[in-house]
């Protein structure tokens, strides 16, 4: 905090103090945040680039203590972490940005996995297409499912929507058991993989997690850029407004139903994409993987990371996937531990580890400069009178209104401007 003018640093300190009073945020987070905001745009990009490169290298470095070996192959563990990150990213659009509680996100994940299976596995009677084509196909199919689910249910709110989506997740799982083509517990084997061979053996295989991990991280980076574009646009603002106050948003001209459907569709597409990736890496899909606890785990990833913060939820997803892999001994205890962690988190840090409000304008930096520029030349400009006196007023007082009448009746004819 040393490099800038005393004026702005004083302002930052003030804001910091206000933040401390208001939200009890730990100071490490505030310091990190203000430090980050003080960096220039290219510095931020450069830092992000370093982070991305480190993320790519993570399984290669295979750091001791952090590694999940010997019980789990670290590269495959990394792939699972990235996959959960991608899932959390998709669910975050629905839950974090638009504020729609979706407990059946696993349903879209399943639809994606089955789409990839049906069009690539030799066990399927359908026409076979190259695996990479199933990724966009899975997204399209899940969007259709998302919209089909959304049109009747998005008129519901809060808890009601949560229950219906929970039902949707179960319906998909049960359909996978009931419909013969989906082969229930037997499932699909030898699901396709991306092309490419080195020395006769395929680059992408179930035993080699590295290419899968790199592929997924690349997908995450692209998705994050696109979602960032959405966030700082009319769409992101509409989603945030719906989350804040749906009725007010509608009255301010936001077609809420359409934007909720868009959020649902976007989330569904990413869920489908993740499902197809999982199907490709594991090479096997049956009806056992898509249960309600996993769906709740996805939600836990979003809440843990911090709803609304893209990078935060990816980290949340990675943590949720990492902990059981690192501490295999946990086994069935993992849900208990996540439960305790979430309860503690809600008590001490209800906005999640990295919860922050996203920026919703494309030109945020420009406008900040403009406002600072306008504010600094004439610091003596008196603020509006309303500021000083109105802060401590809590509500509308019947008596003040009455007194207004009293004053008026004695007055002359000031009402005569017709």
């Amino acid at each position, binding site marked *: 905090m040393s490099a800038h003018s005393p004026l702005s640093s004083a302002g930052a300190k003030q804001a910091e103090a206000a933040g401390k009073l208001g939200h009890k945020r730990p100071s490490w987070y505030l310091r990190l945040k203000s430090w980050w905001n003080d960096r220039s745009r290219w510095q931020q990009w450069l830092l992000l680039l370093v982070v991305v490169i480190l993320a790519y290298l993570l399984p290669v470095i295979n750091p001791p203590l952090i590694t999940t070996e010997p019980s789990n192959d670290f590269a495959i563990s990394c792939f699972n972490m990235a996959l959960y990150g991608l899932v959390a990213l998709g669910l975050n659009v629905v839950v974090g940005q638009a504020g729609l509680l979706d407990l059946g996100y696993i349903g879209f994940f399943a639809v994606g996995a089955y789409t990839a299976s049906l069009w690539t596995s030799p066990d399927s009677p359908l026409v076979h297409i190259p695996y990479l084509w199933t990724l966009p196909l899975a997204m399209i199919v899940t969007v259709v499912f998302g919209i089909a689910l959304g049109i009747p249910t998005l008129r519901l709110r809060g808890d009601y929507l949560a229950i219906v989506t929970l039902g949707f997740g179960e319906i998909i799982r049960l359909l996978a058991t009931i419909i013969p083509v989906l082969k229930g517990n037997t499932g699909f084997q030898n699901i396709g993989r991306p092309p490419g061979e080195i020395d006769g053996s395929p680059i992408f295989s179930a035993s080699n997690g590295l290419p899968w991990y790199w592929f997924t991280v690349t997908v995450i980076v692209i998705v994050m850029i696109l979602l960032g574009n*959405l966030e700082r646009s009319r769409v992101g603002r509409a989603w945030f407004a719906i989350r804040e106050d749906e009725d*007010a948003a509608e009255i301010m*001209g936001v077609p809420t139903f359409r934007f909720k459907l868009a959020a649902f569709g976007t989330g569904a597409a990413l869920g489908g994409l993740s499902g197809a990736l999982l199907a490709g890496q594991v090479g096997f899909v049956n009806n056992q993987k898509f249960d309600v606890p996993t769906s709740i785990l996805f939600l836990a990833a979003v809440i843990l990371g911090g709803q609304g913060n893209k990078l935060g939820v990816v980290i949340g997803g990675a943590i949720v996937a990492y902990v059981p892999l690192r501490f295999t001994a946990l086994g069935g205890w993992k849900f208990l531990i996540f439960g305790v962690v979430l309860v503690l988190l809600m008590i001490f840090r209800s906005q999640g580890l990295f919860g922050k409000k996203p920026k919703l304008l494309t030109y945020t930096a420009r406008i900040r400069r403009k406002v600072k520029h306008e504010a600094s030349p004439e610091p003596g400009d008196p603020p509006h009178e309303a500021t000083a006196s109105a802060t401590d007023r809590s509500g509308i007082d019947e008596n003040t209104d009455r007194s207004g009448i009293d004053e008026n009746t004695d007055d002359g*004819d000031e009402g*005569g401007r017709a």
Partner: protein
Amino acid sequence: MNADANLTEVAPERDIAVAEGDTLVKVKDLSVVFGGLTALDSVSFDIRRGEILGLIGPNGAGKTTCFNAMTGVYKPSQGSVMLEGHSLLGLKKHRITRLGLARTFQNIRLFGEMTALENVAVGLDARHKSGMISAMLRTPRHYREEKQIITRGMELLEFVGIADRALDRAKDLPYGYQRRLEIARALATDPKLLCLDEPAAGFNPAEKEELMELIHTVRDEGYTILLIEHDMKLVMGVTDRIVVLEFGKKIADDIPSAIREDPAVIAAYLGQEEPDATA
């Protein structure tokens, strides 16, 4: 007040089908029934383009109900609301806003976590067309609209006098600023009729005075205003015409000086409070 600085930019040219002084909004036989209770009983009045129409009445008279029926929040059981000759009944709320009817809320309903400027941006977005594709791929239209948000959004904030706090969260703003931000957000939707629901509630006399000034400035920009207000002084001072409701019925509709003398109004509204005002 720095409101006069940028008059031209704040009110862009709008295609309003009716001429100055002609009927912009026609409310006819509007009734709203909740269960067995008739909250609004065959209320009819016109709003002429360019005027400030006051809607007053004692508590529970049906003022806000009338507002809500006009803006599509409640479904009227009978009657019609016409904007420039087109019926608004049965339209979605966001459609009504886009057709040109914007409102503020009696109990402030800003998007608290958003900054003041972002709140206004949501209002401006009512006139924007960017969708998923345009936003994701950053088309020229997206950039055009985002630039417009910066310029017009800041102008609107300056216009209502709160530009200095443009980047603060709405819920951190002082009460008076929040009220003004509500007006700015409604103006951002570029309305033909601006409906203000008790905009001065909770203000002290000095703040009310300033707000009156602001409302006048808004009208001078070419906006038509429907004002619900409790405070008789504010209403008398600022409006061109007043409609008085009592128990869901219209009991008077005239210029302020005539309303002041109207025995029915005095009986319903003022008489019980200040008996000697009639003398």
